[in-house]
C-alpha cells in the first residue's frame, strides 16, 4: 500500500480536484481521478520530495480563516494607500524577521501566506533559514509587526508541520 501510494494525502487531493473540476460523480470520472491520483505521485517520486507530516487540522482551519481575514484587511489598506499615495506616501521598507520555523514545507506555506497578503513580499531567506527579509508596503511599528507576524503565522505553522 505504501509503495503503491507514497503520498496518500496528495493522491486524495488530486482525486478530489478532478471530481470538483468535472462537477460529476460518474464512474468514469471517479476512475479517471483515481488514476490521476495514482500516477502523479509516481511521476513526482524521481524529484525525491521530502516526506511531509501534517498535524492539527483545527489549527489549519483557524490559520486559513485568519489569513483570509488578513488578506481582506490588507487589500483594503493597500487599495486606500494607492489612491492617497500622492498626499501620504506609504512607509515601505524592508524588515528582517528572525525565524524559528525550519521545516521546508512550513516555510513554503509561509511564503505563500506572505505573497497572498498584498501588504507583504517575501524577498529573501537566509541559507540557514534563520532570517527572513520581508518587504512591507506600509509599516508602522517594526517590533509590533514582527511580533504579530511570528505569533499569527509562524507559530501555527510550527504546530502544523513540526
Amino acid at each position: 500500500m505504501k509503495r503503491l501510494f507514497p503520498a496518500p494525502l496528495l493522491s486524495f487531493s488530486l482525486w478530489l480536484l478532478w471530481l470538483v473540476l468535472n462537477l460529476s460523480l460518474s464512474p468514469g470520472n471517479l476512475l479517471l481521478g483515481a488514476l490521476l491520483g495514482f500516477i502523479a505521485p509516481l511521476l513526482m517520486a524521481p524529484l525525491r520530495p521530502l516526506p511531509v507530516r501534517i498535524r492539527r487540522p483545527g489549527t489549519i482551519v483557524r490559520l486559513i480563516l485568519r489569513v483570509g481575514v488578513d488578506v481582506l484587511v490588507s487589500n483594503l489598506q493597500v487599495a486606500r494607500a494607492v489612491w492617497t499615495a500622492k498626499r501620504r506616501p506609504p512607509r515601505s521598507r524592508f524588515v528582517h524577521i528572525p525565524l524559528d520555523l525550519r521545516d521546508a514545507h512550513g516555510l513554503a506555506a509561509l511564503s505563500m501566506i506572505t505573497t497572498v497578503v498584498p501588504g507583504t513580499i517575501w524577498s529573501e531567506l537566509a541559507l540557514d533559514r534563520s532570517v527572513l527579509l520581508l518587504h512591507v508596503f506600509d509599516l508602522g511599528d517594526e517590533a509590533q509587526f514582527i511580533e504579530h507576524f511570528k505569533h499569527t503565522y509562524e507559530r501555527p505553522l510550527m504546530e502544523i508541520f513540526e
Partner: protein
Amino acid sequence: MINANELPFWVEVLVASLLLLSSLFALSGAVGLIRLKDFFQRMHPPALASTLGAWCVALASILYFSMLKQTPVLHAWLIPVLLAITVPVTTLLLARAALFRKRMAGDQVPEEISSGRDRGN
C-alpha cells in the same frame, strides 16, 4: 435549470456588486502600478487583483451558476486556490531578481543575508 431572467432580484444585485467590487480592486492594482515610485512598492498592488479581485469573481460565478442550475456549482473556488499556489513562484523570482540587480547597481537595499549571521539569533 431556470431561465436567466427568472433569477431573484437579490441574486442579481449581489452578483453585480461582487463583479463591480472585483473590477474596482483590479483597477486599484493597475493604478498602483503606475503611481508608485519604487520597484518594491509596485510589487504590492498587483496582488489586489490576484487575491480579492479573483475571490469576488469566483464568488459571483459560484452564486450565479448555482442559482441558475439550482444545484451547487463550486468549481470556481479552485481558481483562487490555484492562484494562491502559483502566484508566489513569480513573485519570489521577481523579488529575488530585483534585489540582485539593485545590489549589483549599488542601490539602497539591505545587505545579502544568505550567510544568516548578521541578525540571526
